[in-house]
């Protein structure tokens, strides 16, 4: 079965694909607030529609700052199927190095993740597929919480 998806390249160099319906808004030149002491992949928050959203995948900071401006940020919705409030949407901001790319994938493109992808995404990695020469992960955002275990 053939499906359309958005291929995303994070500002930290990692990639992933998401379903089209997960995209809420694409933002350019948005300011993010740096939160010291958080895990390395998620150290900033952005304000979106009066919500404070974690920003995933920003490039590493080379200097101590309180604000960083990002060129490409995508707001994504997801559902936590393990939570008590099943059906309630949650949101995450994703920091990109370039604009999202629309791609078409099929079930036959499935493949194994690289060791680096397994290490980066850990329990949140649901599947991978091959697109051109790349292995692109599909991620369950509700499992990105550090305390998540199978």
């Amino acid at each position, binding site marked *: 079965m053939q499906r359309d998806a958005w291929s995303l390249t994070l500002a930290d160099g990692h990639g992933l694909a998401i379903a089209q319906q997960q995209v809420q808004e694409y933002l350019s030149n948005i300011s993010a*607030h*740096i*939160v*010291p*002491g*958080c*895990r390395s992949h*998620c*150290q900033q*928050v952005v*304000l979106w529609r*009066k*919500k*404070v*959203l*974690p920003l*995933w995948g920003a490039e590493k900071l080379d200097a*101590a*700052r*309180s*604000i960083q401006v990002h060129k490409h940020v995508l707001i994504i919705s997801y559902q936590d199927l393990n939570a008590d409030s099943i059906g309630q949407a949650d949101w*995450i901001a994703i920091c990109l190095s370039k604009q999202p790319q629309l791609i078409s994938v099929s079930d036959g493109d499935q493949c194994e993740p690289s060791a680096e992808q397994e290490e980066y995404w850990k329990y949140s990695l649901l599947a991978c597929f091959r697109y051109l020469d790349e292995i692109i992960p599909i991620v369950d*955002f509700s499992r*990105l*919480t*550090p*305390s998540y275990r199978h």
Partner: protein
Amino acid sequence: MTSLALIQVGDRQLAFPHSAIQTVERCSGSQKRICLADQEWELVDIDERFNIIANILSESLVVCFKLHPFALRCTKVGSIDDHEFTPLPSIMGAEDCYVRGFIQQEDQLVFVVDMNSIMEKGGVHCNVMLGV
């Protein structure tokens, strides 16, 4: 709904329980310490990563903390209600994070912090520097 102390330090607005504060005083730019009723506080700043650093700014207000020998220089001192408190997203969680959450105030983001832990870390850092 609870009221929190609100201070401006550099670009950031920080909120924490009023109970952490002993007193708020005025000071001069060259002042290094403040003494009140047999208690002494060293005047300090905190940087963007919440590290305590020697005072380099010339702010005229200082917040003296209970339980800690530091007085933090700041530009503003006030209070804020926590009714729109948003906890730190669990996805960001880390043991070393002193931020408990946020309060949006107009277009500003106030960081609700564990000021006691920031001051404790600062105390350990100072002891290491002094070889204590």
